[in-house]
């Protein structure tokens, strides 16, 4: 049986998410498993039908449910109160597609991958980059422990200049509700009717609107059991990680999208594939910043293939281990942050090192060593200078104890993608958790609101969202998303997916 109850001794009545920011009170806990080693369509059909049966059992029992993957989001999007939980981590197979599986048999089937909803990003990277496949994702978040369904549900992003959030890879989605098994893809057909039917999906929606809603489902459209991802040929990246003097004109270069000039000043004189700048919110233009560049490489002569992700600058999150110092020595926060940043970079990765690796090797699995605070704001890249200066001043002034990281991406991909601008910049506060840092992040958002600068917030991170704010941020796109939701989930079924967080965001009403 692909859905089975998880038996524990002693029975677990509460459950906490990965970052321990929320606790579920559980009536029962279930696990969804891949069935075996049959074909992908058989596995999907068996899994989806089992999930549908399970949903209807929950509906009959009058309980709320919540599918949970990596349980990564500190926004508590995965928390269910007095309900049933479905852990999807063992529904984690991925499959090659054949030309005959597509609506157009001439489609390049090697460019696509069929994955089950519980597969971890790291597993996808491993499978794609293995010899024989020689494919790659274009961009992911810095950590790779999330499941694909969870990462897409919250619009998780990286900092690849030519790519959007991770949902940018998605070309088709299978979603299960009590009413049926739905296959959603854009209006131009991707998969053949025979293939879709074989996966158990009885209801096919070929609609750009429905697809855009399903790309960022925010956990409120049903249980995502499978996705078809578009991949790219395997490529290599050269990394540079260094401490720099960060000045106002650097910020302006980033706001203008002149990444080549920024790279020429601090890295190599060429267009970077990826740019991330970690700044110190305490006097950001007087203190050092850390920059990470990745450059696409086809010719690897003279380069050194890395053996660990750290050699490509992955896992730069040592802030978490020094939380208590930052919390307890408020007068020295700026200095301490600076020391941590420079010590963690060490000698860095220089142009001369020529470290290269695949995309998957640029990411690393996070280790749960300390309580983490993470919050992210998205905005039009052109607004970067005024957001950055106001934001840092407010955050530091209120005692926030994290670095402020700048990331860049394309948008939007999905009606509820927080990266809503064609050229989106993100400002992330990642570091040790403390009440003071939470207050400082709230203060930063309040200051930006007072200045009338539009921005959105990450669904999966600390965000202080409510229904009014979601309405203001997404407006017409929210209404379009709700129309799709109502189509997938009639009012009688919608209650099944209600949680305190989703209710508060107005996504279940």
């Amino acid at each position, binding site marked *: 049986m692909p859905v089975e109850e998880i038996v*524990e001794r002693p029975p677990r009545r509460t459950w906490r998410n990965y970052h321990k920011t929320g606790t579920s009170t559980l009536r029962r806990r279930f696990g969804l498993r*891949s069935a075996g*080693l049959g*074909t992908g369509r058989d596995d999907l059909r068996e899994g989806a039908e089992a999930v549908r049966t399970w949903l209807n059992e929950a509906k009959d029992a009058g309980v709320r449910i919540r599918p949970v993957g990596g349980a990564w989001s500190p926004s508590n999007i995965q928390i269910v109160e007095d309900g049933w939980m479905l852990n999807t981590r063992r529904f984690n197979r991925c499959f090659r597609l054949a030309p005959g599986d597509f609506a157009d048999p001439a489609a390049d089937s090697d460019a696509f991958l069929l994955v089950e909803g519980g597969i971890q990003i790291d*597993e996808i990277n*491993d499978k794609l980059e293995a010899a024989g496949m020689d494919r790659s994702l274009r961009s992911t978040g810095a950590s790779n422990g999330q499941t694909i369904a969870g990462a897409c549900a919250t619009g998780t992003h990286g900092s690849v200049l030519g790519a959007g959030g991770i949902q940018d890879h998605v070309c088709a989605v299978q979603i299960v509700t009590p009413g049926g098994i739905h296959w959603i893809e854009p209006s131009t057909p991707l998969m053949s009717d025979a293939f879709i039917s074989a996966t158990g999906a009885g209801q096919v929606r070929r609609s750009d609107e429905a697809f855009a809603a399903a790309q960022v489902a925010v956990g409120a459209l049903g249980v995502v059991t499978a996705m078809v991802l578009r991949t790219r040929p395997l490529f290599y990246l050269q990394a540079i990680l260094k401490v720099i003097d960060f000045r106002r004109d650097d910020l302006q270069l980033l706001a203008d999208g002149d990444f080549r000039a920024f790279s020429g000043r601090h890295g190599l004189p060429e267009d970077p594939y990826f740019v991330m700048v970690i700044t110190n919110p305490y006097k950001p233009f007087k203190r050092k910043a850390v920059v990470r560049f990745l450059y696409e490489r086809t010719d690897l002569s003279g380069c050194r293939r890395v053996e660990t992700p750290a050699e490509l600058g992955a896992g730069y999150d040592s802030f978490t281990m020094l939380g208590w110092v930052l919390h307890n020595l408020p007068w020295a926060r700026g200095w301490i942050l600076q020391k941590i940043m420079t010590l963690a970079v060490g000698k860095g990765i220089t142009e001369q090192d020529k470290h290269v690796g695949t995309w998957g090797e640029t990411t690393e*699995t996070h*280790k749960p060593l*300390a309580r983490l605070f993470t919050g992210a704001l998205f905005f039009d890249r052109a607004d970067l200078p005024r957001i950055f200066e106001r934001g840092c001043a407010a955050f530091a002034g209120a005692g926030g104890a994290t670095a402020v990281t700048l990331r860049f991406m394309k948008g939007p991909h999905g009606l509820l993608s927080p990266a809503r601008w064609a050229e989106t910049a993100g400002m992330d506060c990642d570091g040790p958790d403390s009440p003071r840092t939470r207050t400082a992040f709230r203060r930063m958002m309040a200051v930006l609101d007072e200045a009338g600068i539009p921005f959105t917030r990450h669904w999966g991170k600390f965000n202080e969202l409510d229904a009014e704010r979601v309405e203001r941020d997404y407006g017409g796109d929210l209404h379009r998303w709700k129309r799709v939701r109502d189509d997938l989930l009639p009012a009688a079924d919608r209650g099944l997916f209600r949680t305190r967080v989703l209710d508060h965001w107005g996504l279940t009403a």
Partner: protein
Amino acid sequence: MNIIVWIADHIAWILAAAALLMLLGQYFSGMADYYLSIENPRPLDENEDVITSTWWGFLTQSQSSYTAEMAGQGLADVRVFATRKQVLVSILTFGWKRSVTIAWRGNAGQHPLGQA
């Protein structure tokens, strides 16, 4: 000579200060976090058990909790650490009672790439 005389006069205080520093060192190092992971972990939910020894380790409680979802795949990673309270209790009871927290996650397992 003066320094030797000074040390002799204050030997009790010096020993007391050294003992205090040793205790402080034990307090901080006692909260250290030891993390062990398999390569390419595919972790499930985290579980925590607290194991307590008394009588300076002669009596150690053994846990027998289990999770059926782990069957067949083993552990993805293990953390061993003591909380601030656990270390303080150990110090204040002169080591008579010592608790450690073991946090562990089962492994979801991996499948070969299949055909759709």
